[in-house]
């Protein structure tokens, strides 16, 4: 296995008294496709959002390319926390994320959606940014929709804009948060194919999904979560044959 890109160490998160994530440990190597499965409410999305600190974990740390990211607790670390927060954008710039509800910017055309990060985060000039954005949108099959506003696009097309927006920044890892759950059934395959293409290009991916076929075909490893903990991790083959009772129950309820 190649070098480790991303590590989660003892990551924990709570909303008030409700523990959402507890003691999450996970190492992800370059080029891996890790699919996270589990019943709803098990903390899959929160786990993903901890990786880029969109939902900052209260406990534990995230190590990305050897650099440690963590939040300090006590009020004495107020300044340290401000410093760490100020640097978060540099971490996030290396991590692409695609959301369940697309979250494309409705006041910008498809190409403007992609250009924004290229100019403001990567510091490209407008012309260079437009070139990269156009290439990125062509790659996801939206070459003819560059100047459309999201309102005029289908769900699948919006999700493609979101994928192009993330990929244009040339991230080192892509996070996918149930990206097909809000799509009409006939549009799901197209997006999954897009993700398959990315995986075969060697992109490191962490994918929260309910699409079991996709997970078992594409994943290098599958993480099964329940009640805020990682219950078991293994190759698709290992997970298919797992004897862990909760994983068994979940899989048989879904796969029948």
């Amino acid at each position, binding site marked *: 296995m190649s070098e480790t890109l991303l590590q989660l160490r003892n990551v924990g998160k709570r909303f008030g008294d409700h523990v959402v994530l507890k003691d999450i440990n996970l190492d992800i190597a370059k080029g891996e496709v890790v699919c996270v499965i589990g019943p709803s409410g098990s903390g899959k999305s929160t786990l993903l959002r901890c990786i880029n600190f969109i939902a900052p974990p209260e406990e534990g740390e995230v190590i990305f390319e050897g650099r440690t990211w963590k939040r300090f607790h006590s009020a004495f670390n107020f300044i340290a926390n401000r410093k760490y927060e100020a640097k*978060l*954008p540099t971490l996030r710039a*290396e991590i*692409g994320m695609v959301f369940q509800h697309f*979250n494309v910017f*409705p006041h910008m055309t498809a190409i403007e959606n992609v250009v924004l990060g290229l100019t*403001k985060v990567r510091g490209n000039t407008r012309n260079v940014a437009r070139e990269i954005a156009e290439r990125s949108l062509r790659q996801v099959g939206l070459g003819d929709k560059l100047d459309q*506003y999201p*309102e005029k696009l289908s769900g699948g097309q919006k999700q493609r804009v979101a994928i192009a927006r993330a990929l244009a920044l040339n991230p080192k890892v892509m996070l996918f948060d149930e990206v097909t759950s809000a799509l009409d059934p006939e549009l799901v395959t197209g997006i999954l194919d897009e993700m398959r293409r990315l995986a075969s290009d060697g992109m490191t991916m962490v994918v929260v999904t309910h699409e079991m076929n996709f997970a078992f075909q594409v994943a290098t490893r599958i993480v099964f979560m329940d009640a805020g903990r990682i219950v078991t991790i293994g190759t698709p083959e290992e997970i298919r044959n797992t004897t862990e009772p909760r994983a068994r129950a979940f899989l048989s309820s879904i796969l029948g």
Partner: protein
Amino acid sequence: MDNSQLFFDFAPIWQARTLLLEGFGIAMFSAVAGIFFAILLGLIVALMRLSRYRALRAIAFTYTQLFRGVPLYVLVLWIYFGLVYAVGIDIPRIPSGIIALALLNSGYLSETFRSGILAVEKGQREAGEALGLRPWQVSRFIVLPQAGRIVVPPTGNQFVDAIKDSAILSIIGVPELMKVAQEQANMYYRPFEFYTVAGLLYLIAVIIVSKGISKLEQRLARFSRASKEASSGERRPSEVGG
């Protein structure tokens, strides 16, 4: 037949037309300048109210309560007369009036802007942050442009209110439309005619502004439709889990 015998006589209006139009101009200028500064102040106060720092939130909250709670009449007198006697700050009439209009309207607008910013779907900020944009860039390029579209209609209403409220500036002698109308009405002893015309001029201004606002609204409609669709998606229970 003597003019003063007529029941209605609009001839004095024609004679005072220059004065009336000047007054109308000053009224419009005060309202526009007042709402302009109110938008700036309102935006600052709205951002303060949404700040992570409790002290800023407290200051902003007090500001909003204060200027929404004081009648414009009091505010105008307080600034023009009060400040001179208390601390020796002597502000001329028109600037005093503009400041009063700005403060009062900024109190209301800060609330409007705050709810407009909160109405932008949460996922928009998250998507911006996930790209690696800094928090101020997320506000500047993603949240505020969308909030701006949401607050166009209520801000337009506030502008309309400011136009009508500018009449109150007559109490400190700002030579705006109402002040002119009062003076001329007394001079010609024709209050009905002068106040009718003054009222009509306010009405015309309000109608024109309202038309302009709804034009603007229509042009922005495509975006607001898009954001409504997105926010209805946000409420899906499936998103909570996972």
